Protein backbone atom coordinates (compact mmCIF):
# COMPACT_ATOMS: atom_id res chain seq x y z
CA UNK A 1 0.00 0.00 0.00
CA UNK A 2 2.85 2.38 0.67
CA UNK A 3 4.08 1.52 -2.83
CA UNK A 4 1.42 3.83 -4.23
CA UNK A 5 2.97 6.86 -2.57
CA UNK A 6 6.53 5.95 -3.63
CA UNK A 7 7.81 7.61 -6.79
CA UNK A 8 7.29 5.75 -10.05
CA UNK A 9 9.75 3.15 -11.18
CA UNK A 10 11.21 2.64 -7.75
CA UNK A 11 10.41 -0.68 -6.16
CA UNK A 12 9.49 -0.55 -2.53
CA UNK A 13 12.37 -1.91 -0.48
CA UNK A 14 12.06 -5.39 0.93
CA UNK A 15 11.06 -5.47 4.58
CA UNK A 16 14.04 -6.25 6.79
CA UNK A 17 14.48 -9.97 7.37
CA UNK A 18 13.57 -10.80 10.92
CA UNK A 19 14.91 -13.73 12.90
CA UNK A 20 11.52 -14.27 14.51
CA UNK A 21 10.17 -16.36 11.65
CA UNK A 22 12.90 -19.03 11.55
CA UNK A 23 13.06 -19.15 15.34
CA UNK A 24 9.30 -19.68 15.60
CA UNK A 25 9.49 -22.42 12.97
CA UNK A 26 12.32 -24.14 14.84
CA UNK A 27 10.46 -24.00 18.14
CA UNK A 28 7.35 -25.35 16.44
CA UNK A 29 9.23 -28.29 14.89
CA UNK A 30 11.02 -29.05 18.15
CA UNK A 31 7.77 -29.17 20.14
CA UNK A 32 6.12 -31.31 17.48
CA UNK A 33 9.01 -33.78 17.42
CA UNK A 34 9.01 -33.89 21.21
CA UNK A 35 5.26 -34.52 21.39
CA UNK A 36 5.23 -37.18 18.70
CA UNK A 37 8.41 -39.02 19.70
CA UNK A 38 8.45 -42.45 21.26
CA UNK A 39 10.68 -41.57 24.25
CA UNK A 40 9.22 -38.22 25.34
CA UNK A 41 5.85 -38.08 23.71
CA UNK A 42 2.88 -40.18 22.74
CA UNK A 43 4.60 -42.24 20.01
CA UNK A 44 2.66 -40.95 17.05
CA UNK A 45 3.82 -42.21 13.70
CA UNK A 46 2.15 -41.82 10.36
CA UNK A 47 2.81 -45.29 8.80
CA UNK A 48 1.14 -46.99 11.74
CA UNK A 49 -1.71 -44.53 11.44
CA UNK A 50 -2.31 -45.60 7.86
CA UNK A 51 -2.33 -49.33 8.67
CA UNK A 52 -4.71 -48.63 11.56
CA UNK A 53 -7.01 -46.64 9.35
CA UNK A 54 -7.25 -49.40 6.77
CA UNK A 55 -7.86 -51.99 9.46
CA UNK A 56 -10.42 -49.68 11.07
CA UNK A 57 -12.54 -49.61 7.95
CA UNK A 58 -13.93 -53.04 8.76
CA UNK A 59 -14.94 -51.87 12.22
CA UNK A 60 -16.59 -48.79 10.79
CA UNK A 61 -18.65 -51.08 8.61
CA UNK A 62 -20.27 -52.46 11.76
CA UNK A 63 -21.81 -49.03 12.40
CA UNK A 64 -24.04 -49.46 9.39
CA UNK A 65 -26.88 -49.80 8.85
CA UNK A 66 -28.28 -47.94 11.90
CA UNK A 67 -30.46 -50.20 14.06
CA UNK A 68 -33.59 -48.08 13.91
CA UNK A 69 -35.65 -50.41 16.13
CA UNK A 70 -33.37 -49.22 18.95
CA UNK A 71 -34.76 -45.69 18.58
CA UNK A 72 -37.66 -45.89 21.09
CA UNK A 73 -35.28 -46.92 23.85
CA UNK A 74 -33.27 -43.73 23.38
CA UNK A 75 -36.16 -41.33 23.98
CA UNK A 76 -36.11 -41.53 27.78
CA UNK A 77 -32.38 -40.75 28.17
CA UNK A 78 -32.59 -38.13 25.44
CA UNK A 79 -35.36 -36.29 27.29
CA UNK A 80 -33.29 -36.49 30.46
CA UNK A 81 -30.40 -34.88 28.57
CA UNK A 82 -32.65 -31.99 27.55
CA UNK A 83 -33.99 -31.64 31.09
CA UNK A 84 -30.47 -31.48 32.49
CA UNK A 85 -29.49 -28.85 29.95
CA UNK A 86 -32.58 -26.72 30.71
CA UNK A 87 -32.23 -26.84 34.49
CA UNK A 88 -28.50 -26.18 34.41
CA UNK A 89 -28.90 -23.28 31.99
CA UNK A 90 -31.66 -21.69 34.09
CA UNK A 91 -29.72 -21.92 37.36
CA UNK A 92 -26.28 -21.33 35.88
CA UNK A 93 -27.15 -18.31 33.76
CA UNK A 94 -29.21 -16.82 36.60
CA UNK A 95 -26.25 -17.10 38.95
CA UNK A 96 -23.90 -15.76 36.30
CA UNK A 97 -25.71 -12.41 36.22
CA UNK A 98 -24.58 -11.05 39.62
CA UNK A 99 -21.22 -12.81 39.25
CA UNK A 100 -20.64 -10.96 35.97
CA UNK A 101 -21.51 -7.56 37.45
CA UNK A 102 -19.07 -8.16 40.30
CA UNK A 103 -16.39 -9.13 37.79
CA UNK A 104 -16.50 -5.94 35.73
CA UNK A 105 -14.60 -2.79 36.59
CA UNK A 106 -17.63 -0.73 35.63
CA UNK A 107 -20.07 -2.25 38.08
CA UNK A 108 -18.03 -3.91 40.83
CA UNK A 109 -18.46 -2.48 44.32
CA UNK A 110 -14.75 -2.57 45.16
CA UNK A 111 -11.40 -3.76 43.91
CA UNK A 112 -11.17 -6.70 46.33
CA UNK A 113 -14.45 -8.28 45.22
CA UNK A 114 -13.43 -7.67 41.62
CA UNK A 115 -10.10 -9.47 41.96
CA UNK A 116 -11.51 -12.40 43.95
CA UNK A 117 -14.37 -12.87 41.49
CA UNK A 118 -12.08 -12.71 38.47
CA UNK A 119 -9.65 -15.16 40.06
CA UNK A 120 -12.34 -17.68 40.97
CA UNK A 121 -13.81 -17.42 37.48
CA UNK A 122 -10.53 -18.13 35.73
CA UNK A 123 -9.91 -21.16 37.97
CA UNK A 124 -13.41 -22.49 37.34
CA UNK A 125 -12.97 -21.95 33.62
CA UNK A 126 -9.69 -23.85 33.51
CA UNK A 127 -11.40 -27.16 34.37
CA UNK A 128 -13.55 -28.74 31.68
CA UNK A 129 -17.16 -29.70 32.41
CA UNK A 130 -16.58 -33.43 32.27
CA UNK A 131 -13.97 -33.27 35.04
CA UNK A 132 -16.50 -31.56 37.29
CA UNK A 133 -18.91 -34.32 36.38
CA UNK A 134 -16.29 -36.91 37.40
CA UNK A 135 -15.73 -35.30 40.78
CA UNK A 136 -19.44 -34.81 41.44
CA UNK A 137 -20.20 -38.39 40.49
CA UNK A 138 -17.54 -39.50 42.97
CA UNK A 139 -19.12 -37.31 45.67
CA UNK A 140 -22.83 -37.85 45.00
CA UNK A 141 -23.09 -41.15 43.14
CA UNK A 142 -24.28 -41.70 39.58
CA UNK A 143 -27.38 -40.00 38.15
CA UNK A 144 -28.39 -36.71 36.58
CA UNK A 145 -27.79 -34.63 39.72
CA UNK A 146 -23.95 -34.53 39.48
CA UNK A 147 -24.33 -33.83 35.77
CA UNK A 148 -26.59 -30.85 36.40
CA UNK A 149 -24.15 -29.48 38.98
CA UNK A 150 -21.25 -29.79 36.55
CA UNK A 151 -23.20 -28.00 33.83
CA UNK A 152 -24.21 -25.23 36.26
CA UNK A 153 -20.58 -24.48 37.11
CA UNK A 154 -19.67 -24.57 33.44
CA UNK A 155 -22.49 -22.16 32.54
CA UNK A 156 -21.61 -19.72 35.28
CA UNK A 157 -18.05 -19.66 34.00
CA UNK A 158 -18.95 -19.13 30.35
CA UNK A 159 -21.74 -16.59 30.76
CA UNK A 160 -20.09 -14.58 33.54
CA UNK A 161 -16.87 -14.26 31.53
CA UNK A 162 -18.63 -13.07 28.39
CA UNK A 163 -21.09 -10.82 30.18
CA UNK A 164 -18.47 -9.14 32.35
CA UNK A 165 -16.56 -8.23 29.18
CA UNK A 166 -19.74 -6.80 27.68
CA UNK A 167 -20.35 -4.77 30.85
CA UNK A 168 -16.80 -3.43 30.55
CA UNK A 169 -17.75 -1.92 27.21
CA UNK A 170 -21.14 -0.33 27.98
CA UNK A 171 -21.99 3.23 27.03
CA UNK A 172 -21.12 5.39 30.09
CA UNK A 173 -23.86 7.94 29.30
CA UNK A 174 -26.76 6.21 31.06
CA UNK A 175 -24.50 5.47 34.05
CA UNK A 176 -23.70 9.17 34.41
CA UNK A 177 -27.37 10.01 34.02
CA UNK A 178 -28.33 7.55 36.75
CA UNK A 179 -25.63 8.88 39.06
CA UNK A 180 -26.67 12.44 38.42
CA UNK A 181 -30.23 11.48 39.29
CA UNK A 182 -28.89 10.27 42.65
CA UNK A 183 -28.95 6.49 42.27
CA UNK A 184 -26.73 4.20 44.27
CA UNK A 185 -24.47 1.48 42.93
CA UNK A 186 -27.14 -1.23 42.80
CA UNK A 187 -29.69 1.10 41.20
CA UNK A 188 -27.13 2.17 38.58
CA UNK A 189 -26.53 -1.46 37.68
CA UNK A 190 -30.25 -2.16 37.53
CA UNK A 191 -31.37 0.85 35.50
CA UNK A 192 -28.31 2.06 33.58
CA UNK A 193 -26.22 -1.06 32.87
CA UNK A 194 -28.58 -4.04 32.89
CA UNK A 195 -30.88 -2.75 30.10
CA UNK A 196 -27.84 -2.15 27.90
CA UNK A 197 -26.45 -5.68 28.27
CA UNK A 198 -29.75 -7.56 28.40
CA UNK A 199 -29.76 -8.60 24.70
CA UNK A 200 -26.18 -9.85 25.04
CA UNK A 201 -27.05 -11.65 28.25
CA UNK A 202 -29.91 -13.50 26.57
CA UNK A 203 -27.69 -14.34 23.59
CA UNK A 204 -24.95 -15.71 25.86
CA UNK A 205 -27.50 -17.74 27.82
CA UNK A 206 -28.86 -19.29 24.64
CA UNK A 207 -25.30 -20.08 23.61
CA UNK A 208 -24.68 -21.71 27.00
CA UNK A 209 -27.81 -23.78 26.54
CA UNK A 210 -26.55 -24.97 23.15
CA UNK A 211 -23.25 -25.96 24.72
CA UNK A 212 -25.18 -27.77 27.46
CA UNK A 213 -27.02 -29.97 25.00
CA UNK A 214 -23.72 -31.05 23.51
CA UNK A 215 -21.98 -31.37 26.86
CA UNK A 216 -24.78 -33.25 28.59
CA UNK A 217 -24.58 -35.86 25.85
CA UNK A 218 -20.96 -36.32 26.84
CA UNK A 219 -20.89 -36.09 30.62
CA UNK A 220 -23.25 -39.04 30.83
CA UNK A 221 -20.37 -41.22 29.68
CA UNK A 222 -18.76 -40.78 33.11
CA UNK A 223 -22.01 -41.67 34.87
CA UNK A 224 -23.79 -38.34 35.10
CA UNK A 225 -27.12 -39.27 33.52
CA UNK A 226 -28.69 -38.57 30.17
CA UNK A 227 -27.97 -40.05 26.78
CA UNK A 228 -24.27 -40.45 27.59
CA UNK A 229 -25.15 -43.27 29.99
CA UNK A 230 -26.75 -45.15 27.16
CA UNK A 231 -23.77 -44.49 24.89
CA UNK A 232 -21.51 -45.98 27.51
CA UNK A 233 -23.66 -49.10 27.91
CA UNK A 234 -23.98 -49.69 24.18
CA UNK A 235 -20.27 -49.29 23.50
CA UNK A 236 -19.43 -51.77 26.26
CA UNK A 237 -21.49 -54.37 24.41
CA UNK A 238 -20.08 -53.34 21.02
CA UNK A 239 -23.55 -52.49 19.70
CA UNK A 240 -22.15 -50.12 17.14
CA UNK A 241 -25.30 -50.00 15.02
CA UNK A 242 -27.21 -48.75 18.08
CA UNK A 243 -24.53 -46.09 18.61
CA UNK A 244 -25.13 -44.83 15.09
CA UNK A 245 -28.77 -44.24 15.96
CA UNK A 246 -27.80 -42.26 19.07
CA UNK A 247 -25.25 -40.23 17.14
CA UNK A 248 -27.77 -39.30 14.46
CA UNK A 249 -30.24 -38.33 17.17
CA UNK A 250 -27.72 -36.10 18.96
CA UNK A 251 -26.83 -34.54 15.66
CA UNK A 252 -30.46 -33.73 14.90
CA UNK A 253 -31.11 -32.39 18.40
CA UNK A 254 -28.05 -30.13 18.31
CA UNK A 255 -29.06 -28.89 14.89
CA UNK A 256 -32.64 -28.09 15.94
CA UNK A 257 -31.57 -26.35 19.15
CA UNK A 258 -29.07 -24.22 17.24
CA UNK A 259 -31.64 -23.26 14.66
CA UNK A 260 -34.04 -22.13 17.38
CA UNK A 261 -31.27 -20.30 19.18
CA UNK A 262 -30.07 -18.55 16.02
CA UNK A 263 -33.66 -17.50 15.28
CA UNK A 264 -34.10 -16.06 18.78
CA UNK A 265 -30.75 -14.28 18.65
CA UNK A 266 -31.65 -12.69 15.30
CA UNK A 267 -34.84 -11.36 16.82
CA UNK A 268 -32.86 -9.87 19.69
CA UNK A 269 -30.17 -8.01 17.78
Amino acid at each position, binding site marked *: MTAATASRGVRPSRPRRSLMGPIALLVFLAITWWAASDEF*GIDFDVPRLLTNLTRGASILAEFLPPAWDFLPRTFGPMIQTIQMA*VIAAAIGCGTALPVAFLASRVSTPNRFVFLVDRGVLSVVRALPD*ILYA*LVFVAALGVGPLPGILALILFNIAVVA*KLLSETVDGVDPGPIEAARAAGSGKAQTVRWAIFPQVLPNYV*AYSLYAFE*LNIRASAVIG*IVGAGGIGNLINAERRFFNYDNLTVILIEIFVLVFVV*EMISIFLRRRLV
Partner: protein
Amino acid sequence: MTAGATQPKEGRPKRPAPTTKRIFTLIFVAIVAWAVLTIDVRLERLPDMPAALANIFDRMFLRDGPEWSYLPDAVGYMIESVQIAWLGTIIGAILSLPLGFFGAKNVSSGLISNIVRQILNGIRAIPEVLVAVVVFIPMVGLGAYPGTLAIGVHSVGTLGKLSAEVIEGIDPGPVEAARAAGGRPLQIQRWGVLPQVLPEIVAFWLYRFEINIRASAILGAVGAGGVGEALVQSLQFRRFDRAGMLIIVIVVVTILIDTASGYLRRRIIEGGDRPSKGAAREQPELAVLRPGAQADAPGGP
Protein backbone atom coordinates in the same frame (compact mmCIF):
# COMPACT_ATOMS: atom_id res chain seq x y z
CA MET B 1 -33.02 4.87 23.08
CA THR B 2 -33.43 6.15 19.54
CA ALA B 3 -37.15 6.51 20.03
CA GLY B 4 -36.64 9.19 22.68
CA ALA B 5 -34.23 11.18 20.55
CA THR B 6 -36.35 11.38 17.43
CA GLN B 7 -39.66 11.95 19.18
CA PRO B 8 -41.10 15.49 19.22
CA LYS B 9 -40.64 17.30 22.53
CA GLU B 10 -44.18 17.01 23.88
CA GLY B 11 -45.07 13.65 25.43
CA ARG B 12 -43.01 10.75 26.64
CA PRO B 13 -42.18 8.01 24.16
CA LYS B 14 -44.70 5.19 24.32
CA ARG B 15 -43.90 2.07 26.24
CA PRO B 16 -43.19 -0.85 23.92
CA ALA B 17 -45.98 -3.41 23.80
CA PRO B 18 -45.40 -6.04 26.48
CA THR B 19 -47.16 -8.93 24.71
CA THR B 20 -44.20 -10.60 22.97
CA LYS B 21 -42.08 -10.26 26.06
CA ARG B 22 -44.80 -11.88 28.15
CA ILE B 23 -45.20 -14.75 25.72
CA PHE B 24 -41.47 -15.45 25.71
CA THR B 25 -41.31 -15.27 29.50
CA LEU B 26 -44.24 -17.65 29.76
CA ILE B 27 -42.68 -20.15 27.35
CA PHE B 28 -39.38 -19.93 29.21
CA VAL B 29 -41.00 -20.49 32.60
CA ALA B 30 -43.05 -23.38 31.23
CA ILE B 31 -40.00 -25.15 29.82
CA VAL B 32 -38.00 -24.77 33.02
CA ALA B 33 -40.97 -25.90 35.13
CA TRP B 34 -41.43 -28.96 32.91
CA ALA B 35 -37.75 -29.88 33.27
CA VAL B 36 -37.64 -29.40 37.04
CA LEU B 37 -40.89 -31.21 37.74
CA THR B 38 -40.38 -34.22 35.51
CA ILE B 39 -36.66 -34.97 35.83
CA ASP B 40 -35.85 -38.20 37.58
CA VAL B 41 -33.63 -36.87 40.37
CA ARG B 42 -33.89 -38.49 43.74
CA LEU B 43 -34.76 -35.35 45.62
CA GLU B 44 -34.27 -36.95 49.02
CA ARG B 45 -30.54 -36.90 48.23
CA LEU B 46 -30.54 -33.14 47.82
CA PRO B 47 -30.17 -32.22 51.53
CA ASP B 48 -27.03 -34.40 51.82
CA MET B 49 -25.46 -32.75 48.83
CA PRO B 50 -23.62 -29.84 50.47
CA ALA B 51 -22.09 -32.13 53.07
CA ALA B 52 -20.98 -34.66 50.44
CA LEU B 53 -19.40 -31.93 48.33
CA ALA B 54 -17.70 -30.34 51.33
CA ASN B 55 -16.37 -33.73 52.36
CA ILE B 56 -14.82 -34.49 48.99
CA PHE B 57 -13.34 -30.98 48.77
CA ASP B 58 -11.92 -31.46 52.25
CA ARG B 59 -10.39 -34.80 51.34
CA MET B 60 -8.93 -33.47 48.10
CA PHE B 61 -7.34 -30.26 49.25
CA LEU B 62 -7.32 -30.00 53.03
CA ARG B 63 -7.40 -33.17 55.10
CA ASP B 64 -5.85 -35.92 52.95
CA GLY B 65 -4.45 -34.07 50.03
CA PRO B 66 -3.18 -32.78 47.82
CA GLU B 67 -0.47 -35.44 47.86
CA TRP B 68 2.57 -33.42 46.86
CA SER B 69 4.76 -36.50 46.30
CA TYR B 70 2.41 -37.32 43.44
CA LEU B 71 3.25 -34.00 41.74
CA PRO B 72 5.85 -35.36 39.24
CA ASP B 73 3.47 -38.09 38.07
CA ALA B 74 0.61 -35.62 37.79
CA VAL B 75 2.72 -33.24 35.72
CA GLY B 76 3.73 -36.18 33.52
CA TYR B 77 0.11 -37.06 32.80
CA MET B 78 -0.70 -33.41 32.10
CA ILE B 79 2.24 -33.19 29.67
CA GLU B 80 0.82 -36.17 27.82
CA SER B 81 -2.49 -34.31 27.52
CA VAL B 82 -0.70 -31.21 26.21
CA GLN B 83 1.10 -33.35 23.64
CA ILE B 84 -2.18 -34.89 22.53
CA ALA B 85 -3.67 -31.42 22.17
CA TRP B 86 -0.65 -30.13 20.24
CA LEU B 87 -0.58 -32.98 17.72
CA GLY B 88 -4.37 -33.01 17.42
CA THR B 89 -4.34 -29.29 16.67
CA ILE B 90 -1.67 -29.80 13.98
CA ILE B 91 -3.78 -32.51 12.35
CA GLY B 92 -6.79 -30.20 12.46
CA ALA B 93 -4.79 -27.27 11.06
CA ILE B 94 -3.34 -29.27 8.16
CA LEU B 95 -6.71 -30.71 7.17
CA SER B 96 -8.68 -27.51 7.68
CA LEU B 97 -6.57 -25.08 5.64
CA PRO B 98 -7.48 -26.47 2.20
CA LEU B 99 -11.07 -26.95 3.37
CA GLY B 100 -11.11 -23.30 4.37
CA PHE B 101 -10.20 -22.31 0.81
CA PHE B 102 -12.83 -24.62 -0.67
CA GLY B 103 -15.40 -23.34 1.81
CA ALA B 104 -14.89 -19.66 0.93
CA LYS B 105 -17.43 -18.42 -1.62
CA ASN B 106 -15.04 -15.92 -3.20
CA VAL B 107 -12.35 -18.54 -3.85
CA SER B 108 -14.30 -21.65 -4.77
CA SER B 109 -17.72 -21.78 -6.36
CA GLY B 110 -21.01 -21.31 -4.54
CA LEU B 111 -22.00 -24.98 -4.77
CA ILE B 112 -18.67 -26.37 -3.56
CA SER B 113 -18.44 -23.89 -0.71
CA ASN B 114 -21.94 -24.83 0.42
CA ILE B 115 -21.13 -28.54 0.41
CA VAL B 116 -17.87 -28.00 2.28
CA ARG B 117 -19.59 -25.75 4.85
CA GLN B 118 -22.24 -28.39 5.52
CA ILE B 119 -19.60 -31.08 6.00
CA LEU B 120 -17.76 -28.81 8.43
CA ASN B 121 -20.99 -28.15 10.34
CA GLY B 122 -21.60 -31.88 10.58
CA ILE B 123 -18.15 -32.45 12.04
CA ARG B 124 -18.62 -29.67 14.58
CA ALA B 125 -21.96 -30.99 15.80
CA ILE B 126 -20.42 -34.15 17.25
CA PRO B 127 -18.26 -33.61 20.35
CA GLU B 128 -14.69 -34.97 20.25
CA VAL B 129 -15.35 -37.30 23.14
CA LEU B 130 -18.04 -39.00 21.07
CA VAL B 131 -15.72 -39.11 18.07
CA ALA B 132 -13.13 -40.84 20.24
CA VAL B 133 -15.54 -43.24 21.91
CA VAL B 134 -17.52 -44.14 18.85
CA VAL B 135 -14.98 -44.06 16.05
CA PHE B 136 -11.33 -44.08 17.06
CA ILE B 137 -11.20 -46.21 20.20
CA PRO B 138 -12.89 -49.12 18.40
CA MET B 139 -10.56 -48.54 15.45
CA VAL B 140 -7.13 -48.13 17.05
CA GLY B 141 -7.61 -49.19 20.67
CA LEU B 142 -7.21 -47.25 23.92
CA GLY B 143 -4.49 -44.70 24.66
CA ALA B 144 -3.22 -41.32 23.53
CA TYR B 145 -3.46 -42.26 19.89
CA PRO B 146 -7.25 -42.28 19.38
CA GLY B 147 -7.48 -39.13 21.49
CA THR B 148 -5.13 -37.27 19.16
CA LEU B 149 -7.07 -38.39 16.12
CA ALA B 150 -10.42 -37.45 17.66
CA ILE B 151 -9.18 -33.97 18.54
CA GLY B 152 -7.73 -33.57 15.07
CA VAL B 153 -10.94 -34.53 13.32
CA HIS B 154 -13.17 -32.45 15.55
CA SER B 155 -10.91 -29.39 15.22
CA VAL B 156 -11.28 -29.49 11.44
CA GLY B 157 -14.91 -28.42 11.83
CA THR B 158 -14.35 -25.12 13.63
CA LEU B 159 -10.99 -24.32 12.08
CA GLY B 160 -12.31 -24.89 8.56
CA LYS B 161 -15.33 -22.70 9.15
CA LEU B 162 -13.34 -19.86 10.71
CA SER B 163 -10.68 -20.03 7.97
CA ALA B 164 -13.36 -19.87 5.29
CA GLU B 165 -14.88 -16.81 6.94
CA VAL B 166 -11.53 -15.04 7.12
CA ILE B 167 -10.83 -15.84 3.46
CA GLU B 168 -14.22 -14.44 2.47
CA GLY B 169 -13.31 -11.17 4.14
CA ILE B 170 -10.09 -10.49 2.21
CA ASP B 171 -9.21 -7.39 0.23
CA PRO B 172 -9.68 -8.38 -3.47
CA GLY B 173 -6.88 -6.01 -4.59
CA PRO B 174 -3.91 -8.39 -4.20
CA VAL B 175 -5.88 -11.18 -5.88
CA GLU B 176 -6.53 -8.95 -8.91
CA ALA B 177 -2.90 -7.89 -8.93
CA ALA B 178 -1.72 -11.51 -8.90
CA ARG B 179 -4.12 -12.34 -11.71
CA ALA B 180 -3.04 -9.29 -13.74
CA ALA B 181 0.58 -10.33 -13.32
CA GLY B 182 -0.31 -13.68 -14.90
CA GLY B 183 -0.47 -15.87 -11.82
CA ARG B 184 -1.88 -19.34 -12.20
CA PRO B 185 -4.83 -20.27 -9.89
CA LEU B 186 -2.64 -21.84 -7.25
CA GLN B 187 -0.17 -18.95 -7.40
CA ILE B 188 -3.03 -16.48 -6.95
CA GLN B 189 -4.07 -18.28 -3.76
CA ARG B 190 -0.49 -18.51 -2.55
CA TRP B 191 0.51 -14.88 -3.15
CA GLY B 192 -2.81 -13.03 -3.30
CA VAL B 193 -4.83 -14.70 -0.55
CA LEU B 194 -2.62 -16.61 1.87
CA PRO B 195 -0.47 -13.69 3.09
CA GLN B 196 -3.63 -11.75 3.92
CA VAL B 197 -5.27 -14.46 5.97
CA LEU B 198 -2.39 -16.34 7.54
CA PRO B 199 -1.96 -14.24 10.70
CA GLU B 200 -5.59 -14.53 11.64
CA ILE B 201 -5.73 -18.24 10.81
CA VAL B 202 -2.60 -18.98 12.84
CA ALA B 203 -4.22 -17.12 15.73
CA PHE B 204 -7.23 -19.44 15.36
CA TRP B 205 -4.93 -22.44 15.49
CA LEU B 206 -3.45 -21.22 18.74
CA TYR B 207 -6.90 -20.55 20.15
CA ARG B 208 -7.98 -24.05 19.14
CA PHE B 209 -4.90 -25.41 20.90
CA GLU B 210 -6.14 -23.79 24.12
CA ILE B 211 -9.54 -25.44 23.69
CA ASN B 212 -7.96 -28.76 22.78
CA ILE B 213 -5.97 -28.82 26.02
CA ARG B 214 -9.28 -28.95 27.85
CA ALA B 215 -10.60 -31.48 25.37
CA SER B 216 -7.63 -33.78 25.83
CA ALA B 217 -7.92 -33.53 29.60
CA ILE B 218 -11.50 -34.73 29.09
CA LEU B 219 -10.64 -37.50 26.66
CA GLY B 220 -8.77 -39.48 29.27
CA ALA B 221 -12.05 -39.95 31.08
CA VAL B 222 -13.14 -42.33 28.32
CA GLY B 223 -9.77 -44.11 28.14
CA ALA B 224 -8.01 -41.97 25.57
CA GLY B 225 -4.86 -41.19 27.54
CA GLY B 226 -3.53 -38.21 29.43
CA VAL B 227 -4.45 -36.59 32.71
CA GLY B 228 -8.15 -37.48 32.48
CA GLU B 229 -7.37 -41.18 32.72
CA ALA B 230 -5.27 -40.62 35.83
CA LEU B 231 -8.07 -38.59 37.38
CA VAL B 232 -10.68 -41.26 36.64
CA GLN B 233 -8.51 -43.93 38.22
CA SER B 234 -7.68 -41.93 41.32
CA LEU B 235 -11.39 -41.22 41.81
CA GLN B 236 -12.30 -44.87 41.25
CA PHE B 237 -9.84 -45.99 43.90
CA ARG B 238 -11.02 -43.12 46.08
CA ARG B 239 -7.52 -41.64 46.22
CA PHE B 240 -8.90 -38.14 46.62
CA ASP B 241 -5.50 -36.83 47.71
CA ARG B 242 -4.14 -37.70 44.26
CA ALA B 243 -7.25 -36.39 42.51
CA GLY B 244 -6.72 -33.07 44.30
CA MET B 245 -3.14 -32.90 43.10
CA LEU B 246 -4.20 -33.69 39.54
CA ILE B 247 -6.87 -30.98 39.58
CA ILE B 248 -4.37 -28.40 40.81
CA VAL B 249 -1.96 -29.36 38.04
CA ILE B 250 -4.69 -29.18 35.39
CA VAL B 251 -5.80 -25.73 36.52
CA VAL B 252 -2.29 -24.28 36.76
CA VAL B 253 -1.01 -25.67 33.46
CA THR B 254 -4.18 -24.69 31.61
CA ILE B 255 -4.04 -21.12 32.88
CA LEU B 256 -0.31 -20.83 32.08
CA ILE B 257 -0.78 -22.06 28.51
CA ASP B 258 -3.87 -19.86 28.01
CA THR B 259 -1.89 -16.83 29.07
CA ALA B 260 1.10 -17.61 26.85
CA SER B 261 -1.06 -18.45 23.87
CA GLY B 262 -3.26 -15.38 24.36
CA TYR B 263 -0.15 -13.18 24.36
CA LEU B 264 1.11 -14.84 21.17
CA ARG B 265 -2.26 -14.43 19.47
CA ARG B 266 -2.34 -10.73 20.20
CA ARG B 267 1.20 -10.34 18.90
CA ILE B 268 0.37 -12.23 15.71
CA ILE B 269 -2.83 -10.34 14.94
CA GLU B 270 -1.78 -6.86 15.97
CA GLY B 271 1.91 -7.12 15.29
CA GLY B 272 2.74 -5.22 18.44
CA ASP B 273 2.14 -5.27 22.14
CA ARG B 274 -0.96 -3.15 22.20
CA PRO B 275 -3.67 -4.80 24.28
CA SER B 276 -6.71 -5.99 22.35
CA LYS B 277 -10.31 -5.51 23.37
CA GLY B 278 -13.53 -7.43 23.22
CA ALA B 279 -14.63 -10.98 23.75
CA ALA B 280 -14.97 -11.73 20.05
CA ARG B 281 -11.32 -10.90 19.40
CA GLU B 282 -10.19 -12.89 22.40
CA GLN B 283 -12.36 -15.86 21.57
CA PRO B 284 -12.83 -16.00 17.83
CA GLU B 285 -15.52 -18.63 17.96
CA LEU B 286 -17.78 -16.23 19.79
CA ALA B 287 -17.80 -13.99 16.76
CA VAL B 288 -21.20 -15.51 15.95
CA LEU B 289 -22.55 -13.78 19.03
CA ARG B 290 -21.60 -10.30 17.87
CA PRO B 291 -24.61 -8.25 16.91
CA GLY B 292 -24.91 -8.14 13.14
CA ALA B 293 -22.68 -11.12 12.51
CA GLN B 294 -24.26 -13.59 10.15
CA ALA B 295 -24.90 -16.56 12.37
CA ASP B 296 -25.98 -18.72 9.46
CA ALA B 297 -24.22 -21.88 10.35
CA PRO B 298 -25.04 -24.23 13.18
CA GLY B 299 -22.24 -25.82 15.16
CA GLY B 300 -20.01 -24.45 17.87
CA PRO B 301 -16.72 -25.12 19.53
